[in-house]
Each structure stands twice: as structure tokens, then as C-alpha cells.
């Protein structure tokens, strides 16, 4: 158990562990026996190791949903829901700027320089970036695209959706936490019966 101390500590600190952020630990966590051992240790702290539905990312969840845990969850859930639209818009922006078809997923790489050169080439992307970066999630006050991009990516890195392998290089990898966000979006869509499944292409064109 001693050798898993650092891993436990990171999990306790609220880190999400995926193949991008820490491949070694990620593989370790795939061992059910180890997870059981960790859970045993975490039990008095009212925590257990949880993973996203597709198994792309590991994190800690509460064992017992007592009042205190629920309060924490409420707070956190509200924050996440509030940041949902800017996050989705950021994903769309990256997807469109980089000419990608599918939504961003764990392991996708983004070179900030590439992204920037694509954005500044396109007036509508510049405008969307400007709007997005002034959102209270990103709080950029600059009117320069490059500063806005830096701020947005910095914030998203802080939120754990991006991993920066080299501190001094503006090169990011999308983490497995994004999968958890997508799962949340899917969950909200299903639970709240958000009417977005039945859209015909005509309806979509109206947006």
C-alpha cells in the first residue's frame, strides 16, 4: 500500500486520473484488487474510487451520501452546470477551427499556435472566441485573440480538461475528464428530456 501513497494522495486532492495525465497509475487502477484495497483505506474518509462509464477516467466519489456530501455535490454540480455552455462552446470552437469532425475526445492534441493561426484567419471564429473568453468561466479582459486563447486554455487546464506535458510549451492534450463531461451532458439530455434528439436537419439549419 505504501507505494500507492502518492496515487492516493492525488486522488484525495480531487485529481482525475486518465491515460493522458498518468498512464502508469491509470493502468494500475484497472486492477480491481487494488481498487478494493484503496477503497478499504478510503472508507473512513467517506470516499471510494469511481470511474466514468466508459472507464476513461478514475476519480473519487462519496460512499455515503450524507448531508455534507450532498452539500458539496450541490455546489460542485451547480458550478459544472454553469460552466457547461462555455465548455461546450469551447469544444465546438476547437473542433471547427481545427477542421475536426468528431467532438474532442481524450488524447486529442492541440497546438496552441495552430489553433491561433486558424482562428485569426476567420472573422467569425475571432468573434466567437472574443465572446467565449469574456464569459465568467474564463474571465479574459484582453481584446487580443492570442491573449484570449492563452487565458481560455489556461483556465481549461486548471479545470482539468487539458494536460500540458511541457510547462513551457503551449501544447495540450485533452484529458479523460472530458469524457466525464460528455457523460454528464448525455445524462442531462436524457433526464431532462432535452428535445435535441428529434431534430431534423432543417431544424438544425435554423440555429
Amino acid at each position, binding site marked *: 500500500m505504501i507505494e500507492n501513497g502518492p496515487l492516493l494522495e492525488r486522488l484525495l486532492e480531487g485529481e482525475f486520473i486518465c491515460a493522458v495525465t498518468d498512464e502508469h497509475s491509470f493502468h494500475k487502477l484497472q486492477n480491481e484488487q487494488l481498487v478494493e484495497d484503496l477503497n478499504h483505506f478510503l472508507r473512513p474518509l467517506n470516499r471510494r474510487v469511481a470511474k466514468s462509464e466508459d472507464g476513461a477516467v478514475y476519480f473519487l466519489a462519496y460512499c455515503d451520501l450524507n448531508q455534507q456530501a450532498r452539500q458539496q455535490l450541490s455546489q460542485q454540480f451547480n458550478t459544472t452546470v454553469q460552466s457547461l455552455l462555455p465548455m461546450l462552446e469551447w469544444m465546438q470552437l476547437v473542433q471547427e477551427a481545427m477542421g475536426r*469532425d468528431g*467532438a474532442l475526445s481524450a488524447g486529442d492534441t492541440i497546438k496552441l499556435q495552430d489553433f491561433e493561426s486558424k482562428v485569426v484567419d476567420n472573422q467569425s471564429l475571432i468573434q466567437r472566441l472574443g465572446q467565449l473568453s469574456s464569459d465568467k468561466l474564463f474571465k479574459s479582459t484582453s481584446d487580443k485573440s492570442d491573449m484570449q486563447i492563452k487565458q481560455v486554455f489556461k483556465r481549461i487546464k486548471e479545470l482539468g480538461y487539458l494536460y500540458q506535458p511541457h510547462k513551457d510549451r503551449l501544447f495540450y492534450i485533452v484529458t479523460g475528464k472530458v469524457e466525464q463531461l460528455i457523460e454528464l451532458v448525455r445524462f442531462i439530455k436524457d433526464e431532462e428530456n432535452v428535445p435535441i434528439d428529434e431534430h431534423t436537419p432543417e431544424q438544425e439549419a435554423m440555429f
Partner: protein
Amino acid sequence: MSTLHEGKSSAQSNPLFQLGKERLELIGKHADALMQGYLQGHVDESSFSHQALEKLINGRILWRPDEQQPLSLRPNVNELIAGLTQDERKRQINSDVGEHLDLIHTRVQSLQTARQKGDYAASEHHMQLLTERVHDMTGQFGDAIESLWHRLNTEFGFVSSLDDKILEIELAQRQLRRILDGFKIISFEDLIQLAGSDGALRKLLVSQLQARISEHSGSLLEVQKRLVLLMARFRHQQERALLVNRMSAFLRQHPNFKVGDYPNRSNVPEVINQAHGISAQGFVALDRPQDSYALAELARAIPRDLVPASQSETQTQGFATAVQDLVATEQKQLAKDVEDFFLHVIESTEAVSGVDYLAENALPWEAEMWLFQIVAEFEGLPQQNKQSFMLEKDSARKSPFNHLHIIQDVKLGMRFFGDFQAVG
């Protein structure tokens, strides 16, 4: 292939040789313009001279599919280029097995007729054509499979959008099914009968063909499996992109959209159960003697700036150099030790001698400094607290000639109900 040339003439003397060479050279000569035509779908007539154009048309390289249509490459040429360049956009997969089998039957019959007539040259020739036909067939499947693999390995990179990729996979799946269906038509029993007792024919039509076909089938099944996986992945990506796009459009349109209070439901959904972070901090603790060495090492290893970088005023409090910093640190430690002494006094039942305490705890301070600090600390106490303690100075007159008293020790005790609890 339609021109049968009887006889054992060498390849060069065959009129086909000259004609084929001329036409291949024609293609080479106009390679630039032809490739442009290949990519654009039609050729630019102005880039050829009138004569060249005529030669290319007569050479069955260019044609006009329709009177209204511009000149373009003949399908065979298109296919040739697509095959040579592995251009999956245009590469065709020919999965027709029936025609090959028909032709094989015909060739075998011609061969057997020639043999019965004893025409050695003709039977040689038919054997060669038959061999070619069999190789054409297996080669065609090999090409088809290679093309499928190529598309798979490049993840259908020749089309850019996800929708197109999905359509391309569907197409590839249909082609693959047709080839597999084609394999079913090949009846090896028929072929065994056809070959009869002829060893060379048996080898060509049965053992070799069988080996190739089973190899191809295995490969195709693998391709099929991979296509299904890739399709699932593309569909997954497509679904995600749609989800992201539509959800963000919905949220933009409904800024007041409220999400249910899931954290307070009786069944909290898994997806939102994420514990908040806690950080376990550790501090320097001196309560385990065995740690003291390691801690001292650590303390020594802390780099000390000789000239501290610009410190704020509150930090410096008048000190400016590293030496003074050190003094300040020592002073803090002294004050702390004295504080501990006071705590010790509170805990003990009797008055405690400062000098004894110093010796017992092996503190590094000079006795004079130590006593001074105790007195200072005592005097510095707020009036209320001061009344709880009683300080007795053990002093002696230094000399009969003046009133200088030297304090040799101080005894500190707790005062209860106004009495010094232990009278010295």
C-alpha cells in the same frame, strides 16, 4: 486478349508488342496532362495538339462519354492510375467471380481440345492463358483486399467528413460481402472434375487456388471485423459531435434552463458523484527523537540567501542582512524556549528554577541570556496573567561597595489564591 496469335513467335515479333509499347509511351509522353485530367474528371483539350489528341483517342486512352461531355480518360486508364496510386476515391473493387469461372471453364475446354488434337503449341498457349486467368482472378481479389486494408489503415482519410467516412465504410462492407459471396460460387468439386487427372491443371485449379482463396477469406474476415470496429468508433464520434452541438445550441436558446436538483435526490446519479478534494498536510514534528536527525538535515539543506531579495517592511523590521536574520531566528527560538518554560511551570506543582530547567533540557542558551529572557517574558505579560505567576529572583550583592546585584537564578511558580505556591 481477343487477338489470338497462333505460333511460337518470340514476344517482340508479336504485333501486339509494338502497339502496346506505343500506347504506353503515349501515356508517358502526356503524363502531366493526363494526370490533370484524372484529377479533374476531364482533360483540357487546349493542352494537347490536334494530332496528339487524335492519337490519344485512337489509342483508346481518351474518349468522349457523350457528345455534350468534355474528353476524359477511359475507365480502364482511370482504373489503372487509381490502382497504381492506391487512390481509394476512384479505385474499383471488382468482385465478379462468375465471369472468371466461366472463362476458366472455356479455357480448360479449349486446352483439352487442343491436346486431343495433339497440337502442342496451341495447348501451350491455352495453358498460358488459363494460368493468366486464374492469376487474374486471385490477383483481383488480392487487390480488392489490399484496397480494403489500405482504406482501413488510413481510416478512410481520403474523405474528410465523418458522414462520408461512414458512407464509405458501408460501401466497403457491401463490397466485402460481395467478394465473400463470390467465393461461395467457386466449387472445388467442379474444378477437381474439370482438372481430371492432369497434374498441372490440378495444381493450378485446385491446390493453388484453394490456398489463395482460403488465405483471402481469412483476410476478408479480419477486414470485416475491423470495419465494424471502425464504424462503431465513427458512429460514436458522430454522436458525440451532435450531442455537443445540439446541447450547446439548446442552452444558448434557453438561457434560463434549469437542471434538476440531482445531488439531493434519494438516488444520486453516479455521473455527478465526485468527491471534493482534500489535501492532507504534514508539518515538522519534533516529538519523535528518531526524526530529529533527518529534520536537522532538512533544516540545514534549506538554502539561505546571503542577500535576501527585496523583503517587505513588515518582514524585515529593521533588519537588513542575513546575519541579522539569523539573530532574529535565534531570538525567536529563545522566546519559544522560554514560552515552553512557562508552560512547564504551569504544568508543574512546584516553582521551577530557570537554571535547572536550562540544564535539564540541555538548551543551548547562555544562562545569563536565558534568565534575562525569562524576566523579560514575565515582565512582558499582561497584568492579568502576570498575577497568576510569581517570579523570585535569586540574587546576591556583587560587592559591598555598590548596590550591584547579580541574579544567579530565577524561580517561577504559579500563584494560587494569592500565595506563592511553594515557598523557596
